[in-house]
């Protein structure tokens, strides 16, 4: 099929789509008052152009345009644009969500004095992210990848007077940098092996990656040869890069901290787009990975998904729960890449972007409204703490509804987008495990458990936040009416509602129960899933159990907590009697899970984050040691030389004692010793 547009026009479109946010970034800083307008207009432009690009490229052609940027020796690095299915999809996704978040932010950030900075940073982020998406070579990708991190740094630290925010953005940037270093090393390996970093040339259909092979312990490419372990190292390096950006174990601990930033930012950057960049990178370079790397990747994804899910179970900070949830879901995607189902990963990436963004926006609305209450009543409480909430469904109906829709999608219940994408991953994992057998069956089992836990923790949030009793009034001794708590205004509501629409499966598939009918999944699925029972079985058992868990969460968190404490209460009896398969589900299991969650959290905060802090501390201590060495040994050596000179000086001057006859003695001694040397020897 021929495109409607010529190549030149495509180029112009793409360039406009990415430069619009950049211009907005500049102009926002100059014309401070119009910042929001610039932001929204520019991202709208981007969206429109992206959409045009999407429709002209999607499933039709691959468009690649490049011109030489740097040419040195063997290295030729281009500036270029690569438009293929993946990039146009991401283009639309990013600009669309960014647009919504922009709109949302108008209200969310209204009262900030420095909101022009906010919008300009946001535009910078959009620019960088769009560039990451359409960059045609890894070097450029790396450049914008770092820029994305920088924008994220700025946005996390938007409230730079908040100590925690500043700590968080530093941490985020540095942990991202760890990943970046991996990425950079990966780049160096590729460059020295293939003499190019062009994605299309390297990994395209006729990519030269295919002409490289491993033989006799050597990794041979048309240009150069290295020992074969460098192939694995290259893979691991990119994996580390992705882990950093996508908050995978062990580089994940920055993401929960990053929640110190404005919630709108969290929704855009730390839920929908930037964190997906890691997965995006993995997708881009996926042909490079060998089996070892893939298995490791799958394991990391699995471990992250499970661990984050269990941690999310006990968090009381609403945003923290969502942050861990994000980590967990990203784990799903990495796992999907690890099991070589790129389509599922992309699919989940897209659907997740919508519902997770929505979750954050909704949570943001809650927080925002509670913040108003806080300001209004001039009381002190943590507006993000779920223990202060409850029963908000009556006060914030729209918020509740959208949140529940998103939660359903997250849990992967039928009719939602999550149902499709998550099942795609699960099925792939099952198939993958089936092919390998043995210990690999752990993967589907654990991922299933994670999937159920997802349902449990997200509904725990819903129940704790929107149902039950509103705990805040009693906490701050005000009447409910005094709080003036109501839904947010349209600026915030509309984006949420729009996103909610996209949480439904219809949008992604004609038949919301059939993965194969999804256009998105279909577009990337190179080899269709074999028709098997799995397609039927997996969704059913996952969903059924999820539902059960949701109900149990309802029982636990809405009806009361007595289930744990008062065995004689009827709730407990009820659950115990009614749901008879208490082997699977009784208080012990719940306790077990909760206990595990606590362990996980402890592990996360103490060991992982502890390790991060420890390494930071260790680096600092080490740096102190080095500094000490520098001052006392290196410089000490230099000063020691000076000391030696001054010692000799003292000695020589003591020879010059002032007594004539001492002079004679010295003179004759030295003179004689020379003569003896000459005469005797």
């Amino acid at each position, binding site marked *: 099929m021929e495109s409607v547009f010529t190549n030149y026009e495509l180029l112009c479109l793409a360039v406009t789509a990415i430069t619009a946010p950049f211009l907005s970034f500049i102009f926002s800083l100059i014309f401070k008052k119009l910042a929001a307008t610039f932001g929204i207009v520019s991202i709208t432009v981007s969206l429109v152009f992206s959409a045009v690009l999407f429709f002209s490229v999607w499933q039709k052609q691959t468009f690649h345009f490049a011109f030489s940027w740097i040419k040195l020796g063997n290295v030729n690095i281009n500036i270029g644009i690569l438009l293929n299915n993946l990039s146009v999809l991401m283009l639309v996704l990013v600009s669309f969500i960014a647009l919504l978040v922009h709109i949302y932010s108008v209200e969310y950030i209204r009262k900030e004095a420095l909101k022009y900075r906010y919008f300009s940073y946001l535009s910078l982020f959009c620019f960088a992210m769009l560039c990451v998406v359409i960059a045609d070579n890894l070097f450029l990708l790396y450049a914008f990848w770092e820029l994305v991190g920088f924008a994220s740094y700025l946005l996390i630290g938007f409230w730079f007077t908040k100590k925690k925010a500043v700590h968080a953005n530093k941490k985020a940037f540095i942990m991202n940098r760890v990943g970046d270093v991996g990425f950079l090393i990966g780049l160096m390996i590729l460059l020295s092996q293939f003499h190019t970093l062009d994605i299309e040339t390297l990994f395209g259909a006729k990519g030269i990656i295919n002409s490289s092979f491993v033989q006799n312990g050597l990794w041979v490419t048309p240009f150069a040869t290295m020992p074969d372990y460098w192939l694995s190292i290259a893979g691991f390096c990119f994996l580390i890069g992705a882990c950093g950006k996508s908050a995978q174990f062990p580089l994940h601990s920055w993401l929960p901290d990053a929640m110190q930033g404005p919630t709108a930012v969290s929704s855009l950057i730390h839920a929908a787009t930037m964190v997906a960049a890691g997965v995006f990178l993995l997708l881009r370079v996926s042909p490079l990975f060998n089996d070892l790397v893939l298995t490791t990747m799958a394991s990391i994804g699995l471990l992250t998904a499970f661990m984050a899910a269990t941690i999310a179970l006990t968090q009381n900070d609403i945003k923290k729960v969502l942050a861990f949830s994000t980590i967990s879901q990203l784990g799903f995607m990495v796992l999907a890449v690890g099991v070589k189902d790129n389509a599922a990963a992309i699919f989940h990436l897209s659907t997740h972007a919508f519902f997770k963004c929505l979750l954050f926006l909704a949570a943001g609305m809650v927080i925002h409204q509670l913040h108003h209450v806080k300001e209004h009543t001039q009381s002190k409480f943590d507006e993000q703490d779920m223990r202060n909430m409850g029963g908000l469904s009556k006060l914030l109906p729209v918020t509740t509804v959208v949140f529940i829709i998103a939660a359903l999608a997250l849990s992967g219940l039928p009719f939602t987008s999550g149902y499709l994408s998550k099942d795609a991953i699960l099925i792939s994992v099952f198939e993958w495990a089936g092919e390998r057998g043995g210990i690999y069956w752990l993967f589907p089992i654990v991922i299933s458990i994670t999937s159920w836990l997802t349902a449990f923790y997200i509904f725990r949030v819903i129940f704790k936040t929107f149902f039950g009793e509103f705990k805040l009034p009693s906490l701050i001794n005000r009447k409910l009416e005094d709080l003036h708590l109501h839904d947010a205004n349209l600026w915030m509501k509309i984006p949420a509602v729009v996103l909610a629409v996209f949480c439904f499966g219809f949008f992604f598939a004609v038949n919301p129960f059939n993965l194969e009918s999804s256009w998105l999944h279909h577009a990337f699925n190179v080899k269709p899933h074999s028709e098997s029972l799995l397609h039927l079985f997996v969704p059913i058992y996952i969903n059924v159990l999820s539902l059960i868990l949701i109900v149990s969460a309802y029982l636990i968190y809405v009806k009361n907590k007595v289930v744990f404490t008062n065995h004689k209460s009827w709730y407990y009896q009820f659950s115990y009697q009614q749901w008879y398969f208490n082997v699977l589900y009784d208080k012990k299991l719940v306790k077990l899970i909760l206990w595990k969650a606590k362990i996980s959290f402890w592990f996360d905060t103490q060991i992982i984050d502890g390790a991060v802090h420890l390494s930071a501390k260790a680096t600092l201590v080490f740096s102190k040691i080095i500094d000490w060495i520098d001052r006392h040994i290196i410089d000490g050596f230099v000063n020691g030389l000076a000391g030696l000179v001054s010692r000799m000086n003292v000695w020589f*001057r003591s020879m010059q*004692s*002032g007594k*004539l*006859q001492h002079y004679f003695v010295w003179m*004759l001694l030295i003179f004689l010793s020379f003569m003896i040397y000459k005469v005797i020897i």
Partner: protein
Amino acid sequence: MIPLQHFLLIGAILFSLGLFAIITRKNAIQILMGIELMLNASILNMVAFGKYDKIDNTGQIFGLFIIILAAAAVAVALVIIMNLYKRAQTIDPNQTKSLRG
């Protein structure tokens, strides 16, 4: 006939005694005497060797020059030492050690 060696050894002894004197004597004039001893050793060598240099007579003439020069040097040295005595009331080289280091 006295062997040359004997002259030389006597000279060497005188020279060594002179060295000993300049190091140990506590009086600038005695140090000067030590130096004279050393000079005498040299003259002795010169004249001893001069025996084999009849025509040019270098040894003896050199010896004469040394004697004359020694006189001049002693005169100068004595003046300087007496000047020191005038300023410092001592000519003990151990007592005059204000310049050092």
